[in-house]
């Protein structure tokens, strides 16, 4: 990956995410190597790749969730650590952690998103802000329900609200559309659209562009832990949708079919 390729198309400021020669090894296995990427302010970037290609690991490494083996990651110009303005970073993981013996309601989960960096106590208006964030994702009426009683899609909305409560300038989403009902997918798309309109940067892991297609300006494709494509989003979806299409594309393969049972889902926007 040359620096020229990593240069965002319309970088008009310093990069929001800057990754240089990133390598990550987990459990003795090299998961990522030689990743060079820069994402400029206001970009909406999709991270594509097959299962196990290292998409989630890359995102988790960017946020300091998994340790970095080699290379550097900078967020808003600051190397990972206490110096990063964490308040400006919103992360939406794939799912809620498994339920434990102690219930937690949606307000509490969302309010925990207000703690970032060295801020260990919530602001005074934490409850009001958590409610406002839940309102944005259409969950205000379920704010006091224990989250483990909510449906999968509703839990996903709570997770979006937890990221939104900070009013982030960088939103990182991990497969927001996998296993999620259509209205919740739409909530994700609307959220990304609104943040993008406000000038936020978005990095989103996707299996296929799906409902996000109109928003995506640029795509990164990972294969075997290496970046194999950085540029225009591949238009895989139409071809995929055709019956009997072959998995050969002029551009980098965005996805290999999974091993599990195949269910065809019609997504009607």
């Amino acid at each position, binding site marked *: 990956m040359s620096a020229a390729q990593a240069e965002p198309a319309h970088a008009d400021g310093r990069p929001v995410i800057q990754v240089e020669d990133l390598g990550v090894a987990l459990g003795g296995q090299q998961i990522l190597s030689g990743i060079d990427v820069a994402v400029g302010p206001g970009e909406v970037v999709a991270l594509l790749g097959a299962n196990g290609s290292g998409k989630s690991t890359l995102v988790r490494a960017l946020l300091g969730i998994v340790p970095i083996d080699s290379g550097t990651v900078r967020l808003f110009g600051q190397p990972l650590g206490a110096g990063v303005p964490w308040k400006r970073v919103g992360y939406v993981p794939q799912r809620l952690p498994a339920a434990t013996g102690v219930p937690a309601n949606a307000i509490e989960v969302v309010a*925990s998103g207000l703690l970032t960096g060295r801020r*260990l106590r919530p602001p005074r208006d934490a409850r009001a802000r958590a409610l406002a964030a839940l309102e944005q994702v259409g969950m205000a009426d379920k704010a006091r329900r224990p989250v483990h009683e909510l449906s999968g899609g509703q839990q996903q909305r709570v997770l979006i609200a937890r990221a939104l409560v900070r009013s982030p300038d960088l939103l990182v989403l991990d497969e927001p559309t996998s296993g999620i009902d259509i209205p919740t997918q739409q909530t994700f798309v609307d959220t990304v659209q609104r943040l993008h309109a406000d000038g936020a940067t978005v990095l989103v892991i996707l299996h296929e562009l799906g409902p996000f297609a109109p928003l995506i300006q640029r795509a990164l494709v990972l294969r075997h832990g290496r970046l194999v494509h950085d540029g225009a989003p591949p238009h895989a979806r139409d071809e995929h949708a055709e019956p009997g299409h072959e998995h050969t594309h002029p551009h980098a393969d965005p996805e290999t079919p999974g091993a599990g049972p195949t269910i065809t889902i019609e997504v009607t926007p």
Partner: protein
Amino acid sequence: MTWLDQIITMLEWPLMQRALLAALLVGAAAPVVGTFLVQRRLALMGDGIGHVALTGVALGWLVGNWANLAQDDTLAVPGAVVAAVVGSVVIELVRERGRTSGDLALAIMFYGGIAGGVLLIKVAGGTNANLMAYLFGSISTVSGGDLWWTAGLALIVLAAGVGLRTALFSVSYDEEFARGSGLPVRFLNMLIATVAALTVTIAMRVVGLLLVSALMIVPVAIAQVFARSFGRTMALASTIGVAVSVVGLSVTYWQDYPPGATIVVLAIAVYAVAATLRPLVHRPARHEDPHPEVQDDVVLASTARD
């Protein structure tokens, strides 16, 4: 004498005053820590720390013996504090490394703690009988000095547990998210571990090392039957902890029961009643379809295009 007079007489007795105050503080603090432990799926951590603390008691005894202190057990409680903190930090490090081997490592620590304690107390010239007071509690022997220790440590535990509850909740609920928010996850994890260790050592005098965990966990189990949020669970558990500790201890004023066991049996009885009444507490929701109103994700055969 009416029951009121009896209670007043009980409260006028200095020994009982000290014991009740210790029970009150421990009863309030232990479930606060227990709430975090249950959320982290570490309900048995208190037991692990308790076992290790026994070695600390014996070590303190041994050191006191070597130093020719007037009383053999002067250093027992400080020894327990040191061993418990070291043990809890090791448990946390094992947990951090991954769960597969952690289970086994914890088990080995449990057994090592008890065996080490029994062995060392013999070396120190004591007997297993000396350990019994620590294993099963000896609240009637709480001295003025002990009370200050207990009060001080309980206040630290309460201040950390309640003051930083949102941060501790965040790290206990979703550690990865907390890490991705730049929170000092390791510090917060160690804080929970240390606070749990301190709780074990202050509760040691009230219910004994073998039953310490019960006072941390059972009130949380009772509270989660009724509560529907983390904050409520913690507040309710703490209240229940105070109630069972004070009531259980008071019972032993009239009946010659061991205080620690009485408190724990009382707590478990309350849990049994609460769990039985659960269906009555959680009244069925208003008549409504529990499924959210959502459009089908799939096109059914009857409506599909050709």
